[in-house]
């Protein structure tokens, strides 16, 4: 009886504690999301004012003259992201396949997995320096290729780890069904396992692309920047982040406005990419147990 009474007596205190903790956690969640919302609102506000049709069709205007746009930087970012995906996506998916299907629990695989995790947290400027050393220096000039290469290296860990995680979600009994049908292992992996999780893997790819699209530091070193249209993949190329950086630190009012517009477009691009993939891949393609 004693215990029962004591428990009843504790009840009020327990409930109060519960409420305080809940309030605290809610507050923490608000603090976490506040920067996102305020950055978004601020960028949209400032960027929208500077937005015009010219922004998407014109080259940057010379100092002193008004108007102009970032058409070259927008296409440049697209070219860089495409180049990066061309290298990063196949390497990332194949790496993920190796880690989940072939290496599995081997020493090599766990070493590789560790390496990929480290790569994911290497500061992007270091990746830029690396690309500078292996691509820019031999070619003797910054280029779209060097930029794409640097962004690809940044994409690989995201794509590889997401692919691995998603492939591992495919239950063993699905693989066994394939093997028991007399389907060779590689075909089971490609046509059944990979196909089943492709939708989700595309989400991983999109996240990788979104990350690559916003990188600035490695592009400063590798793709440099340009106020003109691209003259080829072996030439320097403009990109949104670098253009934003150049214009934002300039002392000219017009340029700073353009930088805000650029930031707006970049945020919109990443936002649309995220939301878009989520909408396209709304059906869960992974088998449920």
């Amino acid at each position: 009886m004693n215990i029962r009474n004591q428990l009843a007596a504790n009840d009020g205190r327990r409930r109060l504690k519960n409420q305080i903790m809940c309030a605290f956690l809610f507050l923490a969640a608000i603090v976490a999301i506040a920067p996102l919302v305020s950055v978004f609102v601020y960028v949209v506000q400032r960027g929208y004012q500077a937005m015009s049709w010219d922004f998407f069709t014109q080259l940057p205007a010379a100092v002193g003259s008004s108007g102009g746009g970032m058409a070259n930087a927008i296409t440049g970012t697209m070219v860089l992201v495409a180049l990066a995906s061309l290298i990063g996506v196949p390497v990332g998916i194949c790496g993920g396949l190796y880690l989940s299907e072939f290496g599995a629990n081997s020493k090599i695989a766990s070493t590789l997995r560790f390496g990929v995790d480290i790569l994911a947290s290497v500061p992007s400027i270091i990746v830029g320096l690396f690309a500078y050393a292996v691509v820019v220096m031999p070619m003797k000039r910054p280029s779209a290729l060097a930029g794409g290469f640097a962004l690809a290296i940044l994409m690989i860990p995201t794509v590889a780890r997401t692919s691995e995680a998603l492939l591992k979600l495919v239950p063993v009994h699905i693989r066994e069904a394939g093997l028991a049908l007399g389907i060779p292992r590689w075909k089971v992996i490609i046509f059944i396992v990979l196909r089943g999780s492709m939708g989700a893997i595309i989400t991983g790819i999109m996240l990788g692309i979104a990350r690559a699209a916003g990188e600035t530091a490695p592009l400063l070193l590798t793709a440099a920047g340009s106020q003109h249209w691209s003259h080829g993949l072996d030439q320097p190329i403009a990109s949104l982040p670098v253009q934003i950086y150049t214009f934002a630190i300039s002392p000219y009012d017009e340029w700073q406005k353009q930088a805000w517009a650029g930031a707006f477009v970049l945020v919109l691009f990443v936002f649309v990419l995220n939301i878009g993939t989520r909408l396209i891949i709304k059906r869960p393609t992974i088998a449920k147990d």
Partner: protein
Amino acid sequence: MAQTSIILQTKRVNAYFGKVHAIQDVSLEFRSNTVTAMIGPSGCGKSTFIRTLNRMHEEVPGARVEGEVLLDGSNIYQPGVDPVSIRRRIGMVFQKANPFPSLSIFDNVAAGLKLAGFQRRTVLQEVVERSLRQAALWDEVKDKLKAPGTSLSGGQQQRLCIARALAVSPPVLLMDEPTSALDPISTAKIEELVMELKNEVTIVIVTHNMQQAARISDHTAFFLMGEMVECDLTSRIFTKPRDSRTENYITGRFG
């Protein structure tokens, strides 16, 4: 029952998971166009045993097999034998229905052929229809062959898996507790199916359910703790078993 030829035979098969000796010296014969049931308490090794028959046991990391399994007289464990070619001739249906989640009903059934290189649409259509009819599923799905395989009910999914296994025309079909996750009506359908299918394939079925073994099998093998205690005509196993352990099990004294 008339004696038919031996299609599958094991000689002193031993199976291991790492250091665990799961199956000890099992020698059995399976005759063409018969149903052989493997019964025994949980963990007795009956599922492990049938997985040694189509080289699926070795898919588990650390697992290995010793002894011989003769399919039409040749050892499937001989060095140089490709497990893929064995599995095309010895099909398997699992305890849990496992249709390929990303594929339609049609493609589920066609998968074995398609991924073996058959591409002719007309051939595939023919085989898919025949296999679904064999699995007594055709009438229920013929109007929705493009629907995902996973959209079917549990019992239908299991029959889809049977159709998928039959599509590659294996002479032997292994069934690992195919009805243990199904309701009585679906179970009855599959039992009926098994009895019809034995005209075309030799069936080895693992079951927890002794009544099921009695209903559908010609021969029954009783497993206990990794050993095959005895194998005989089903009618004899359930009426006058030779081993007292078998008798204890079928009379419900343990297991």
